[in-house]
């Protein structure tokens, strides 16, 4: 059951790989929203006009956006003679397909093709698939992360480092790959059976430093380019001032995302005398939504420890930490869109629970206990999906600027 024939696999793959993101994209258009608005427009601006910066950091300018994604659009546009919008559409879809395929390849070696296909299918049904089709850089980073894990699985550390390097000039979230690489280097050293754990740790540190020139190669090129063009090698960080309403941005802004999320949940609980559905869906705030997914991400993380998939555990934790310290709670989906580990861990957990449930024959107490655990997991999964559907319909229809930009 674990491995599929080509026909079965193809049928399973068509739906998640093609239909869902496209479907979300069509919903987007049906709701009368302009094609590729907000940040997508900035990326397109870079493709068409190149980087511009007039020295006034109180005015929003395209230098705030990293070049990894628009560079690929530019290459596709030039190679095939396409306009920027079409090239953007192709890059987004390709990024999603490539990412899904490589993640499928990576996890199918661990849980088999059949369950991997289910993971990819659940992932494609997540509301955050919209980020793979709305012209943002998420789909390219998703592809890069998938390729990164694939290279690590094949033992190609240098290729994985090059992927990280390109990721770093695509989205800052690419930093989440660095601890995974470090863990891989540690594991390789430790598995030799010659070194103690601390010697392996030291050797992994040394190997990381040796790989660093490869990892920083694209950031180095970018910073030199910025220095030559604008006289400031880190000009990108200053232009965020225009988006931050006059407050000088800091790396860690007092963990507002957590504080806001928790306080908002407690204030949301004051409602009474209305239906749960209405209460939940009409009063759901971005903070509550953020807290829901943050908690889900954290709850599922220990599963990777239980099954010893430490690389996914480290990646998941890194993404959550990046999410917390960036204090950017409004763009929830943009953080979640890399948490491929959520459906992965969910499928592993349900698989274990179901198999335990199935082998029980006589012990009724245990059977009841497992039944309730399964029921709880199921209810949680349903609310997870329902809130996702809410995100798609309600957020795009009414709150698009805050939620989807």
């Amino acid at each position, binding site marked *: 059951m674990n491995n599929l024939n080509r026909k079965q696999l193809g049928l399973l793959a068509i739906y998640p790989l093609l239909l869902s993101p496209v479907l979300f994209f069509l919903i987007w258009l049906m709701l009368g929203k302009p094609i590729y608005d907000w940040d997508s427009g900035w990326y397109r601006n870079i493709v068409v006009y190149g980087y511009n910066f007039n020295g006034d950091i109180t005015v929003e300018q395209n230098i705030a956006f990293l070049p990894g994604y628009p560079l690929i659009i530019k290459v596709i546009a030039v190679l095939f003679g396409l306009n920027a919008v079409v090239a953007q559409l192709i890059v987004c879809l390709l990024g999603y397909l490539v990412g899904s395929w490589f993640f499928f390849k990576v996890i199918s070696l661990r849980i088999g093709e059949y369950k991997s296909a289910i993971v990819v299918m659940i992932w494609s049904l997540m509301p955050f698939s919209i980020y793979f089709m709305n012209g943002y850089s998420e789909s390219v980073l998703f592809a890069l992360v998938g390729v990164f894990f694939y290279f690590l699985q094949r033992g190609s550390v240098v290729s994985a480092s090059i992927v990280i390097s390109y990721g770093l000039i695509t989205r800052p979230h690419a930093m989440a790959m660095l601890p995974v690489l470090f863990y891989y280097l540690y594991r390789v050293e430790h598995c030799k059976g010659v070194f103690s754990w601390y010697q392996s740790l030291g050797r992994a540190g*040394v190997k990381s*430093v040796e790989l660093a020139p490869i990892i*920083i190669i694209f950031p180095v090129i970018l910073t030199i380019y910025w220095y030559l063009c604008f006289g400031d090698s880190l000009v990108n*960080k200053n232009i965020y001032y225009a988006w931050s309403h*006059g407050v000088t941005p800091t790396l860690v802004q007092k963990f507002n995302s957590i504080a806001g999320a928790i306080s908002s949940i407690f204030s949301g609980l004051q409602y009474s005398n209305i239906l749960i559905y209405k209460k939940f869906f009409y009063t759901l705030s971005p903070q509550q939504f953020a807290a829901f997914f943050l908690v889900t991400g954290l709850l599922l993380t220990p599963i990777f420890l239980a099954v010893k998939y430490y690389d996914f555990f480290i990646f998941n934790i890194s993404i959550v930490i990046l999410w917390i310290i960036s204090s950017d709670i409004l763009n929830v989906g943009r953080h979640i869109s890399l948490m491929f580990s959520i459906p992965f861990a969910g499928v592993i957990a349900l698989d274990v629970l179901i198999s335990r449930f199935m082998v029980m024959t006589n012990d009724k107490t245990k059977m009841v206990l497992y039944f309730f655990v399964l029921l709880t997991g199921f209810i949680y999964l349903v609310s997870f999906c329902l809130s996702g559907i809410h995100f798609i319909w309600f957020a795009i229809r009414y709150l698009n600027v805050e939620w989807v930009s």
Partner: protein
Amino acid sequence: MRVIFDHPFRFAISFSLIIFWLMFLYSTSHTTDYYLYRIAKEVTPGEIISWRNDASKLILKGWSNAEIDFRWSQNRQVEICFKPDKTLFRQLDSNGELSVTLEIAPIPALECKEVQFSLSPNGATGSAIIACGKSFYAISSQFETIPDIVCLKIILPFTSKENLGNYRQLGIMLYSVAFK
């Protein structure tokens, strides 16, 4: 050490490259303040800048966006920086005295509490008991040479509790800043 290093030379080269790049970034990047000071317009003696026209002349740190007729302080320590017109200030007062007058009003909890002021770069300090409602508070200092940038730091004893759903920590309302 031999256990840790397989290729010490390779490690040294890599480490040097990282350090070299970090040094490059350090020496070729600018701070946010650099850009803000560069685009700020000079203030002249006798000028009164209100919440309406402060955008291009005052560099505000820790203040909210302009509301109906004021700005809120959002931190316990807030700053107002400006570029004095050196020639005009020198012509007006040969001693190089520069005075800043603030028109502010506190949240009720801050009334009758002491607020401290500090003017940089020479570090002149002062304090005042905040009155109820809108009032004027002045701080002045003598400069041997009028500096390029002058910053007035206001240190409040505390701020209000954080608003739910809005991350402002309110303290005082800033209405206008006058220079002499």
